[in-house]
């Protein structure tokens, strides 16, 4: 039998893994430089280790009771090795590679605690795996460069960057788990008795992440991030079979900013009200005409149709649509619009910004990047992969642990040099409806997310998924809530139709998924009037509502 064990304390030499990462990187680099397998040209010219520890506590209430509390923790190791030279290295895109030549990128779960040796062994093994893969890939890269035509953008694969030394003591602020279990149970009970609410939950997610980065240039980063989301969702089925879900949440950077009891209950009541109103709302047919995108919807709209298209790596990838690559210095938006991406900004309009960080995932200090000034494109978001005319990173190299870094958005902030009150903007919408001889215009009030395609092999379209859409009638009838549509379009045509902005600003906090995984972002914008948008029918389910009534 397994004899009872005294609860022995596990030696934890890697609570701060940075010293082991630094010493292992130095020793591995020295060994490879002293005796590189294919001669000195094959030694790595750059080597980086990143360890991210993520701890998440999820508390959930449902149907008036505590549903469960889940605690998770892991550490992910990413190793990046570059072989060749900054001009041409193993990360270079292999053009016209077949679908089946996909390359797996290894990453590893490494110990949360234990002896230094456990981490050191993982680092050495991983470096060897990645280095062998890098050498093999460089052979293919060189051949591909010889076989294919000259690239349109001959910029280097990697750019120099200043050494960063940033070590911030990070301690996450705890929450009272038991108190929240009780509150979420109570809040979830507000759905009981709301006829047609089939399923629902209220959740608090407490996330802490600690990050350590070292590289062969001498950069050393130790920092952390904490994030708290109070969220609730409820779902129902409309009589026509359309499955409806309303989700609402509050994202904050400290537990003291979380809603109190009244705020949590109001969040739930608001979702229940909106869900049931939507259930009774009529459907909208496919339509085009003038619309207002309220601040959050406009933020997502810009994130999708503009933000992704100014990410640096897309400007030199010849499979990409490259909507804006050749438009630097040209007007691409109305002259009253400015756009900046500023990860250094922590708060806006009274809200914590999800896309806030000081140092990116390549160990480069984040910069505020003016992307559009007076409607004119000025810049791109850049990682350490430079593009023609933009030789250095501006601190936007980001990734979810386990992925290769690319340029990503942080806090994309749209502002207007000329604006009117929202009421005036709404009047302009009605005037536009009348001018276009339409029955109604639309106001996109709340959205759940969106997506876009940026490649050349697919239409360069976008979709924004609204939750709450209102019809605003030309004849002055009261506004009418409607459901069942997605906002769709293509970027250049849509930009040209932005005609006015309000003086409000709203923030959308969310996570964005792309080549380098899911990263936290924010998008902020004033409400915008667009002279013409297009909506299409939303995918809908076909299930009958439950055959039996809710249990009593």
């Amino acid at each position, binding site marked *: 039998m397994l004899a009872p064990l005294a609860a022995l304390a596990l030696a934890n030499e890697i609570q701060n893994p940075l010293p082991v990462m630094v010493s292992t990187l130095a020793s591995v680099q020295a060994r490879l430089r002293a005796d590189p397998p294919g001669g000195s040209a094959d030694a790595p010219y750059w080597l980086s280790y990143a360890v991210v520890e993520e701890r998440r506590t999820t508390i959930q209430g*449902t149907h008036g009771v505590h549903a469960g509390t889940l605690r998770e923790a892991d550490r992910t190791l990413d190793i990046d090795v570059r072989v060749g030279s900054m001009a041409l290295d193993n990360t270079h895109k292999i053009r016209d590679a077949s679908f089946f030549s996909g390359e797996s990128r290894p990453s590893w*779960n490494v110990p949360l605690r234990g002896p230094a040796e456990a981490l050191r062994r993982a680092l050495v*093994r991983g470096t060897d795996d990645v280095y062998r893969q890098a050498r093999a890939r460089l052979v293919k890269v060189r051949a591909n460069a010889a076989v294919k035509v000259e690239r349109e953008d001959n910029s280097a694969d990697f750019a120099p960057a200043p050494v960063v030394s940033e070590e911030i003591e990070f301690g996450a602020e705890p929450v009272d788990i038991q108190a929240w279990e009780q509150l979420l149970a109570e809040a979830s009970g507000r759905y009981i008795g709301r006829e047609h609410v089939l399923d629902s939950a209220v959740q608090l997610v407490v996330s802490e992440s600690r990050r350590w980065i070292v590289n062969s240039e001498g950069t050393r980063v130790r920092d952390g991030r904490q994030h708290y989301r109070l969220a609730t969702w409820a779902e129902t089925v409309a009589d026509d079979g359309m499955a409806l879900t309303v989700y609402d949440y509050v994202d904050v950077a400290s537990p003291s900013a979380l809603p109190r009891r009244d705020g949590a209950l109001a969040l739930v009541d608001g979702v229940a009200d909106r869900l049931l109103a939507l259930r009774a709302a009529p459907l909208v047919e496919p339509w085009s005409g003038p619309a207002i995108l309220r601040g959050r919807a406009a933020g997502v709209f810009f994130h999708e149709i503009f933000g992704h298209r100014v990410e640096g790596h897309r400007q030199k990838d010849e499979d990409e649509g490259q909507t804006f690559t050749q438009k630097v210095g040209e007007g691409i938006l109305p002259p009253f619009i400015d756009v900046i991406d500023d990860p250094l900004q922590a708060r806006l309009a009274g809200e914590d910004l999800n896309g806030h960080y000081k140092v990116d995932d390549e160990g480069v200090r984040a910069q505020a990047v003016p992307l559009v000034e007076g409607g004119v494109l000025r810049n791109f978001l850049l990682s350490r992969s430079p593009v023609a005319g933009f030789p250095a990173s501006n601190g936007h190299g980001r990734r979810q642990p386990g992925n290769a870094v690319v340029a990503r958005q942080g806090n994309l902030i749209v502002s207007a040099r000329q604006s009117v009150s929202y009421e005036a903007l709404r009047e302009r919408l009605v005037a536009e409806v009348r001018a276009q001889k339409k029955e109604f215009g639309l106001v996109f009030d709340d959205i759940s997310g969106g997506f876009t395609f940026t490649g050349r092999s697919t239409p360069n379209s976008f979709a924004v998924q609204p939750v709450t859409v209102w019809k605003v009638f030309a004849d002055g009838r009261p506004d009418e809530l409607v459901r069942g549509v997605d906002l769709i379009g293509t970027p250049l045509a849509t930009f040209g139709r932005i005609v006015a902005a309000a003086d409000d600003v709203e923030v959308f906090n969310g996570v964005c998924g792309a080549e380098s995984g899911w990263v936290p972002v924010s998008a902020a914008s004033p409400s915008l009037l667009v002279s013409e948008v297009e909506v299409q029918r939303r995918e809908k389910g076909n299930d009958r509502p439950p055959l039996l009534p809710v249990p009593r």
Partner: protein
Amino acid sequence: MIALAGLGVSLALGAAPADEGVPEVSPAIEASLVAELERARELRLPGKSAPSLVLYDVLDGDVRSCFGEDGGLVVESLERFRNLRVEVRVAEAGMDSSSFRAFGEPDGVVSRRLPVADDAYALRREVWLATDAAYKHAVEQLSRKQAAVQELPEPLPPDWTAAAPVVVREGKHDGNALGMAECREVVTRLTAGAPTSIEQVQAVVRDWHGWRTVVTSEGTRAWIPTGNVVVRVEATARRADGTPVQDARWWVGKDRSSLPSLAEMEGEVAAMRARLAAVVTGPSPEPWLGPVLFEGPAATELFSQLLAAEIVGTPPELEDGDSFLASTRGAMARLGRRLLPDGWRVHDDPSTRTGRAGEYAYDHDVVAPRRVDLVVDGVLRDVLMSRVPSKFRAASTGHGRSLGESRRGAMPGYVHVTPGRRLSEAALRRKALQLARQVGLDRVLVIERIRPPAMADRLDITISGEGPPPGLTDPYEACLLDRQGHCEPVRNLRFVGVDRRSLRDIVAAGPGAGPIDTLDGPPGPERFGIGSTGGVPVSWDVPSVLVAEMELDPSTGGEPRIIAP
């Protein structure tokens, strides 16, 4: 596609419970199931039948798991697991919606996590939604099955064997769950201190203890204690030419008191590492054609992999599409088939009380198991059955067990394989060497340990989702035994062309290693996908055996390291 989402998804949640033994049984679960069962009888889609059968099965307990590597703790979790499996069947014209599979289509079985609070209303809300979905799926599944079988020349056997309702009130759980401190210590100590010649040592521990609550429309009401614990350790080394070499140890038991002491496990792991370090620098393996001796855990794995499918009488599920007729031939088990040499016997009896993990009081259908004499004089005479009948056998033998949402087919429980004659270990080895000499070999191959299906990681298995083409997974440990009694370790061999007929080539048997507990899935592809800590406990008591002739080839692969550890 690039997506932005603020929308979260509902997480399947379990509570993080206090780390103190096995939770109490929850009467609220049974109360909520009974209440919704009564309402489920009223389910009726227009023009369709009401449910013919409703089966609720809730697993409620604590799962403790730890994963360690090279002395460090990589992942740990302590989770309250409360999960409902609801099966609804709809019947028309003597046929119900079960035992049929249509690719990508839902059947009448739905799983749903339940809140951990013992609140009958909250539990009923979840049961209500799951039952509604299961009923609708069952109605559509029956229509698919009716469409598929309407041209069949002969009627199908019944889908279900009636059984008297059972009321079980096992109010006390005598399981001895592993604590989190022990969980952590096991994985860190078993993986610590490996020499640099061993690239990596990983260990995983999973302890599950809780209750199964079953409520059926037939009247069954049951609280049944359940649980098991598994420890697996795997070490990897690499030869100079880059070929990876692996070895492993694992222990499965009813609970922590069934496991060896940590010191004993450490001793076994140390011996494994030493052997691995030696074999990784040894000579390259040569192809083998000749007699093979299976000793210890390797003999258990030989029988488990080759015999399990031959003793289970559950017919395969009917499948929609072109493969339909082929799959209606009946169970793989064929009564009257010779499986073993004359004089051999096999029986399965999970009803004994010797502490083995494969013993149980009730199967997942809440049928008490009975002894089944399967093989007599080497010939299959009876089969293991759940409540899914076949053309040849109707009654359950109390062997109905399954994984998750899968159909409740029969699985082995505690299998005893008894040879007609048993040699001593020394005599068995002499016999093996004698057979080797007859074919011009001066040594005989001894297989000591075989990779269990749960740890099979070959690409062909991963892609196909099915068992290895040779019929038997690769050996972890093997050696070449000479006349002086020295057995030289060999590595990286792979069986070629093995199937159940290899069992008939057994020419002698020895003492065996005694009963061994394993975790396994139902015979078939599922057993290769259960993961290193999943599966249902099965015990085997088998002799060591000598097979007259087998073929094994060396396996290669991998790249040499550039950066030495």
